[in-house]
């Protein structure tokens, strides 16, 4: 494909994740957008197409009242954990279709404290499912992790290693929420939430906002010294036989996740192999999820994670650096912003200006992966 038809990230902005009672979701989104526009060196009036996502913190397109009533087309997205990827997909497709040369994707959220609670009716389930205490995402993560450790002979210590690395990376990232390193022992000994997962192996719902400016072809190189190419972006829903959150029943295995489909499509679309990836973002709502997603996306083999983690291969200085900003574990999970946080971190890494620890050796290929209810996954390959 010629450069003219390619979509690039040319600017990004991020409001710090965490808890800050002084700002609303919309306040954070506005700041992230203004930062992204300034980073790209463009004005809001230059944006020809926009998409925004938020799970609980307001209609994104009302941001035009703050940013300027330019008449820009603005699509609202509410797509669970794939919200961020869906906004990027909407903008990238609009640019490729010739609707505009410059677009903006924004995601934000501000959640109440504590685990998410979900409405059974919204997921097509009877009230009994929630009333009897089976409708918690935390349970799903624990049940899938327990089974996975059993099938692949992985120890609970590997789960602690995932969280230990997340908090170590987060401690050095100015935009992360959890900035205190924790030892493996502290993580293993923290309160039992849903074994084998302990308190510090789970991320928390939080708040934050991220925005990206995307540009087409030559415009991208006019604006940006080092634009980051969106080499591919694939979004998949579940197929029969996947093991998903909020499942009162499962078919007998094997269970194939939509993460497998999305990752395969993303790598195929970009024409790169998982082994080419030098900086990766993998959904880590909990330690077990990251561990499983590493293999489901093809970044390692099933059962290989224990050795990979023990050897430091997923550290920023390792063979395949994972969640260099601390991921969801250190950043928390504002659903609408979380997927775009992944893009933000990978883009900044590939441009050699990571806010936290910079991956050495000029990484050229980055990867992002999200997974969420009720069985969706989106993966992207970014290159410079």
């Amino acid at each position: 494909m010629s450069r003219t038809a390619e979509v690039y990230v040319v600017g990004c902005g991020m409001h710090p994740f965490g808890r800050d009672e002084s700002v609303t979701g919309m306040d954070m989104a506005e700041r992230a957008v203004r930062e992204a526009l300034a980073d790209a060196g463009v004005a809001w009036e230059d944006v020809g197409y926009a998409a925004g996502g938020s799970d609980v913190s307001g209609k994104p397109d009302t941001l035009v009242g703050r940013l300027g009533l330019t008449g820009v087309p603005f699509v609202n997205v509410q797509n669970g954990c794939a919200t961020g990827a869906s906004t990027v997909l909407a903008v990238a497709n609009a640019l490729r279709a010739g609707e505009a040369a410059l677009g903006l994707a924004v995601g934000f959220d501000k959640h109440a404290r504590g685990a998410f609670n979900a409405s059974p009716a919204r997921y097509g389930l009877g009230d009994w499912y929630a009333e009897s205490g089976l409708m918690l995402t935390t349970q799903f993560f624990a049940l899938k992790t327990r089974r996975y450790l059993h099938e692949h002979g992985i120890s609970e210590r590997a789960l602690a290693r995932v969280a230990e690395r997340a908090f170590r990376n987060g401690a050095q990232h100015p935009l992360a929420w959890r900035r205190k390193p924790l030892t493996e022992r502290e993580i293993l000994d923290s309160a039992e939430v849903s074994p084998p997962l302990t308190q510090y192996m789970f991320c928390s719902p939080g708040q934050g906002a991220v925005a990206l400016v995307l540009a087409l072809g030559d415009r991208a190189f006019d604006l940006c010294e080092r634009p980051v190419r969106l080499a591919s972006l694939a979004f998949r829903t579940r197929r029969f036989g996947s093991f998903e959150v909020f499942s009162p029943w499962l078919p007998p295995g094997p269970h194939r996740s939509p993460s497998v489909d999305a990752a395969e499509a993303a790598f195929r679309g970009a024409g790169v192999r998982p082994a080419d990836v030098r900086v990766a973002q993998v959904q880590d709502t909990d330690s077990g999820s990251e561990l499983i997603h590493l293999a489901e996306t093809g970044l390692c083999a099933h059962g290989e994670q224990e050795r990979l983690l023990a050897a430091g291969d997923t550290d920023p200085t390792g063979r395949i650096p994972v969640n260099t900003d601390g991921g969801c574990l250190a950043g928390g999970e504002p659903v609408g912003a979380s997927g775009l946080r992944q893009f933000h971190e990978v883009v900044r890494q590939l441009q050699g200006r990571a806010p936290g620890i910079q991956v050495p050796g000029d990484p050229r290929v980055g990867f992002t992966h999200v997974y969420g209810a009720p069985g969706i996954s989106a993966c992207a390959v970014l290159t410079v």
Partner: protein
Amino acid sequence: MTTRLIDETLFDSADPPRLVGARCTACGTVVFPRQDSCPRCSDGTMSAHALPSSGRLWSWTLQAFPPKPPYRPPAGGFEPYHLGYVDLGEVLVEARLAIPRAEIRIGLPVRLTTVEAYHDEDGTEVLTFAFGPDREGGR
């Protein structure tokens, strides 16, 4: 004390408890609870299908903190409880587990039972399905 089942459409019978799902006449896929269309193929019709009452524990965990509503705690207040998936052969079913922690392990033979979910405002005890150790199984 009067009792009732949490949702009668889940059960084929109450005593002894028996769960009912649905089976696709075309591809044989078994689902729980019942639904009118097959999630696997678009060809078949779904017919009521009573599920086996015993199986083996496939995965398990604990619910350590009180869930937010619409969860309803039992009359005596929230106590941590175990839950898991049970492999019934043709289908895996998610359920509460009435098994002591020391006994819980993947592969444990289990059998269907009921446990208190909560009480209605009029004092009626509401039962939901659960799996307990199958002392006869696994021999």
